[in-house]
């Protein structure tokens, strides 16, 4: 009997999920996170889950881990002291950045720039020059560079980044710098831009490579420490895999070398978990939203695959690394509502009460009204419900806080509370539109999936706004990331930048490059014990009209490309361009990047068997509680989710409660439990039921 373990480290809690590969039986555990050294929380959690489930630690063969170590290192600015080598004349490449100042006219008056991740005083120049086409115009002055690197050595840098102009077209000089650095700065990890992200645009490439250096020492020491500890406590050959931002798994070694690819490891886990439950429930096209304390992450899933993008953002740091296309909007349970005196408008966020002091209802010192407080006032979070663990909800404090906004606007407390949730919903709606309508998708072709601690509270409302049904609330919406970690598949990719017009390319040449790249990724997966015949290979091309800034990534199978040649890509590009922007151009197509992607098979996990579950829906009902909805009070029935089984139907108004999450079903809607345990919320009318 073997087990796999998914571990997601969040800001407050570390969630664990243990799955029996053979029976599909699952166990969950929640332990407090240990922000100072998050491996402690992970190890505590493993100890707890094995104790409570009675599973022998030696039976755990795979540990899949979504980590926020890289992200937190950036958010808390606790990364390495990074030295940077640029081409002469470009020392200030990060300092000048793209010269962009956010905001409208006069935005510069209130703009404050963050400190650089590789400060100017630790940036040195290399006297060298590469041309745009990759020819050395001026060879590297090695002696001068050596002197400069000695300065960085004396300044005790902890990591070095090399990003030279036009290195995307030829990385030879960067490698030359790396060799000298190895000599002058032995033991200091070096990141080269031509390795990390061989793409045009000096600022973005420098920033991405610097971020890699910045988080690398912390991530690698964390992963190596964790792996050592796991081997000591679990089986000797236990495999640790890390979830990357793009939703693929990587070995801990490759994750430690290119940690810039881990920045969205956490959100990617949630999306992967949503894919797991939605696809098994028969829903392949899904819009997901994950409502946390300070923000909401949304993503689009098409054919059970998350849409990707080639940029990753963490706070105000943006890097060129592939990630699940998760868009974040600053509206979460902790978002603060207020009414500016001048305009008497109602604003929600982006300021947040966060985890400390948290919403007023948490009784931890928060006094400002938050979205959570509005949910409490409306009765959507019933006072008896416990929040993740044992926290009590104080309705009186929530009411005091919301009353402030009500008074400022001259409306009733219920109107204010409903207003706050409506505006928060509208922010989430805006983000969902951004990834659907604005990308040419019709939301009516999608189901919605809400998770995270607060997602199920807003699920029904967002279904109404999006007109996307059903709205799916998966089992354990608060630990969905851990599900995602445990159930995702290993994936790797290799890419090459071309930037050439189609007219100057031939089918055979393109195929040859892709076959080379395929060899590289196949070997990489083989090193992770996945045989070639088990791997699925996809080819991708990034294409645009020559001169455009956008890149559309097109998937193509090796067979299609070999048979039909580059026309396949042209047609696919034109179709996508038309879908997105409603026009095509007669311009030459440009092939920017080629990529080979290899995926391992999905893990073979048995379905959970509900056969032993018996009893009607009434046994799950535990009482009633008033809720306010569209201007009126209603009596909602309260249900315990762990007593709801496939086939059960809950009619709104209702509230479904579980350990760390609460689902609201409005009057006129109903929720059914599907065969894998998802709650499916739908309108009652039009279903032939009434």
């Amino acid at each position, binding site marked *: 009997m073997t087990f796999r373990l998914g571990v997601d480290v969040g800001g407050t809690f570390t969630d664990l999920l243990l799955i029996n590969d053979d029976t599909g039986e699952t166990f969950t555990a929640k332990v407090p996170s240990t922000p100072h050294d998050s491996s402690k929380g992970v190890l505590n959690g493993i100890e707890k889950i094995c104790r409570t489930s009675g599973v022998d630690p030696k039976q755990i063969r795979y540990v899949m881990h979504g980590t926020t170590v890289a992200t937190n290192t950036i958010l808390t600015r606790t990364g390495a002291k990074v030295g940077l080598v640029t081409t002469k004349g470009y020392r200030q490449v990060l*300092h000048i950045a793209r010269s*962009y100042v956010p905001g409208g006219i006069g935005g510069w*008056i209130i703009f404050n720039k963050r400190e650089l991740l590789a400060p100017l005083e630790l940036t040195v120049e290399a006297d060298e020059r590469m041309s*745009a086409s990759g020819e050395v115009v001026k060879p590297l002055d090695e002696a001068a560079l050596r002197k400069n690197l000695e300065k960085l050595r004396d300044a005790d840098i902890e990591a070095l980044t090399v990003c030279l102009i036009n290195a995307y077209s030829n990385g030879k000089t960067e490698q030359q710098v790396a060799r000298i650095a190895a000599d002058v700065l032995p033991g200091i990890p070096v990141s080269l831009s031509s390795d990390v992200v061989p793409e045009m645009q000096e600022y973005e490439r420098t920033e991405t490579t610097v971020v890699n250096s910045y988080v690398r020492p912390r991530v690698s020491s964390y992963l190596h420490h964790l792996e050592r500890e796991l081997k000591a406590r679990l089986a000797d050959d236990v495999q640790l895999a890390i979830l990357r931002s793009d939703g693929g798994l990587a070995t801990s070694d490759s994750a430690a070398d290119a940690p810039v690819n881990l920045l969205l490891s956490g959100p990617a886990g949630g999306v992967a978990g949503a894919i797991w439950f939605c696809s098994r429930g028969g829903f392949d096209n899904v819009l997901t939203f994950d409502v946390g304390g300070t923000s909401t992450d949304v993503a689009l899933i098409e054919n059970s695959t998350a849409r990707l993008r080639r940029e990753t953002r963490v706070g105000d740091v943006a890097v060129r690394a592939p990630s699940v296309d998760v868009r974040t909007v600053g509206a979460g349970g902790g978002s603060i509502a207020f009414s500016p005196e001048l305009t008497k*408008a109602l604003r929600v966020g982006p300021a947040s009460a966060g985890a400390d002091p948290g919403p007023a209802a948490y009784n931890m010192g928060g006094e400002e009204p938050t979205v959570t407080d509005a949910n409490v006032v409306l009765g959507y979070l019933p006072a008896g419900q416990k929040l993740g663990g044992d926290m009590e909800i104080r309705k009186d404090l929530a009411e005091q806080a919301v009353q402030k906004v009500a008074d400022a606007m001259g*409306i009733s407390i219920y109107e204010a509370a409903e207003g706050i949730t409506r505006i928060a919903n*509208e922010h989430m709606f805006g983000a969902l539109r951004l990834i659907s309508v604005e990308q040419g998708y019709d939301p009516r072709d999608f189901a919605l999936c809400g998770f995270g601690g607060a997602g199920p509270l807003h699920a029904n409302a967002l279904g109404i706004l999006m007109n996307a049904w059903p709205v799916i609330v998966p089992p354990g919406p608060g630990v969905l990331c851990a599900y995602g970690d445990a159930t995702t598949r290993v994936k790797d990719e290799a890419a090459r930048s071309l930037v050439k017009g189609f007219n100057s390319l031939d089918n055979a040449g393109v195929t040859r490059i892709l076959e080379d790249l395929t060899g590289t990724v196949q070997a990489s997966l083989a090193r992770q014990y996945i045989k070639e015949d088990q791997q699925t290979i996809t080819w991708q091309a990034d294409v645009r009209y020559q*001169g455009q800034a956008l890149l559309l990534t097109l998937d193509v199978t090796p067979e299609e490309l070999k048979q039909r040649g580059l026309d396949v890509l042209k047609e696919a590009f034109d179709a996508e361009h038309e879908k997105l922007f409603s*026009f095509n151009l007669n311009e030459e197509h440009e092939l920017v990047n080629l990529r080979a992607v290899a995926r391992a098979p999905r893990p073979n996990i048995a379905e959970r068997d509900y056969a032993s579950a018996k009893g009607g829906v009434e046994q799950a009902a535990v009482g009633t509680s008033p809720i306010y909805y569209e201007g009126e009070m209603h009596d909602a029935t309260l249900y315990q989710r762990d007593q709801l089984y496939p086939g059960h139907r809950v009619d709104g108004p209702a509230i479904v409660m579980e350990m760390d999450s609460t689902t609201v079903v409005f009057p006129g809607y109903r929720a059914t439990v599907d065969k894998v345990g998802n709650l499916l919320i739908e309108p009652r009318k039009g279903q032939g039921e009434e």
Partner: protein
Amino acid sequence: MPASLIQPNNQPFKKVAVDTVTLDIIENAMSNARNEMDAVLMRTAMSPGIREQGDAFPMIANHEGKMVVGQFGSFIYGFLEAYDGTVEEGDIFLTNDPYMCAGAVSHLPDWLILMPIFKDGRIINWSAMFGHMSDVGGKVPGSLPTDARTIFEEGIRIPPTKIYKNGVMNQDLLELILHNVRMPHWNRSDFNAIVAACKTAGRRCQELAERFGDDVYTSSLGEMLDRNYIAMREIIRKVVPETKQSFEDYICDDGAGLGPYTIRCTLWREGDKAIFDFTGTDPQAPSSVNFYLNEEMFKMFFGAFTINLFDPSILFNDGFYDLVDVRIPEGSILKPKFPAPLSCRTHLLGRIFDVMSGLLGQGSPDAMSGAGFSDSPHLMYSGYDDNGEWFQLFQIGFGGVPGRPLGDGMDGHSLWPGFTNVPNEFVEAYFPLRIETYETIIDSGGAGKHRGGNGLRVGYRLLANGQISIHDDRWLTYPWGVNGGEPGQRGHKELIKASGERQVLPSKCDRVQVEKGDLLLFDTWGGGGCGDPLERDIEAVVRDVERELVSPGGARRFGVVISAAGVVDQQATDSLRKEMRQARGEIGIFNRGGTLEELKARCLEDTGLEAPTTPEWEH
């Protein structure tokens, strides 16, 4: 003859009460629609000016043509006044002629697309966007000839024209227009991108009206306008005194030997109304530095400049226009007479913001920033590359943001919203040049408690014979400092020939012949300082020196003495600061680095260029 609107459904919209939350939701959705316009444009446009630099601006107006969201105010009214024809469902209009739309766009390269949005036979909104085309024909590549004497030399003039009728594009007309420009495939794709953005806004408005009902929707837009009216009335009462106050600033020259030109503005309040009177501004120039300033646009600048301080999340719009009166003398450089050339209005467009800052700031000096890089320096480089292919580069430069009450000005950044630089690797991949230097100029930001940002030096190694044009300003007058802050360093342009010969270039010049191997140094100016430099935190000075943004010598401007090894000599610093404090006496609000007469007298010696002649009104 004003335009006639053809609306099959003539039922007027009903004004209904709207609850605050619905209003806030619609406000948020309108803001999203506008962001979506930007996103569509950036992704599909092709010229570097629009796709990389973001030189394009969207707007959505209500059914009456008042701007609900956007940056430059509405121009629907001016358009409807000037257009002699019908406006029907499926029409899309194109124009670029400032004289035909009351200055809604201010030079020919800005193409304005405008579209009525119909729902059920009624106009519910207007969407519009203008974007800067890299070329619209005329006498020089880039279509920005400083030495034009009439607008006819500046490119193809397009009066308000139905480029789409009944949803169908007039292909022949578009081809005729594109036949007159040097980079037709850029214009074509930028045109398509702007149309796609306007159509996107159209769909969003229709969806919103559908979702909330036409009357609730249009009433909400009305309320949003009222919100701005109420907010701005408060602001005007706060920031505009009833007593008159005046301020003047300058553009250094017109590229035709005259200058500096004075922009003078007097501001006061009568009741709730703010009055901006430009009497005292110099006459129009013979060259194209004239700026046909749309009064409504100026109101918008004023509002945008001030409202940020009070409710930054408000959706800024036209609603307060009745509260502002703008008076500009006919025939002045801000209201030139047809057919005066207009293409290089960028200098004045930027300077208007320094004028506004100086004018409003006198009422509350503590809230005041220094003078900035409030201009967009241009470089045009064109010719035939080694393969005999025509190339045409248009770059906008960046410089020093002024010192602000909040902190230092940024080095080498944009004061213009949404602008970004074009990656040098992109430029090198598509144009015959190498950018050898791209860094900010040490000590170029004005000293101050909060120093001005440094200007930017770009060193272009030109790899093909061709010609260049440069448009810049602040080479003679300084970006002023405030409240003890010193002025920033002025801009400078120099060509270094392969032979080593150095040639100072005027800040405005056209058709300068260049040869393969020449090096062009393009230095922009630094921002003015803010506050007393002797009060600057010594640590901040040391940090700037470590970062090579300020030199050890330059640190003395702050009264800070730093050794070659980078160590502060505290004692020497104390006595230097004391000495400087005594020597300078009382500090005034503005430091312009000397009077115009003084600057002119030192001009040749300081800049390597002859001083221009002061312009005068004809009597």
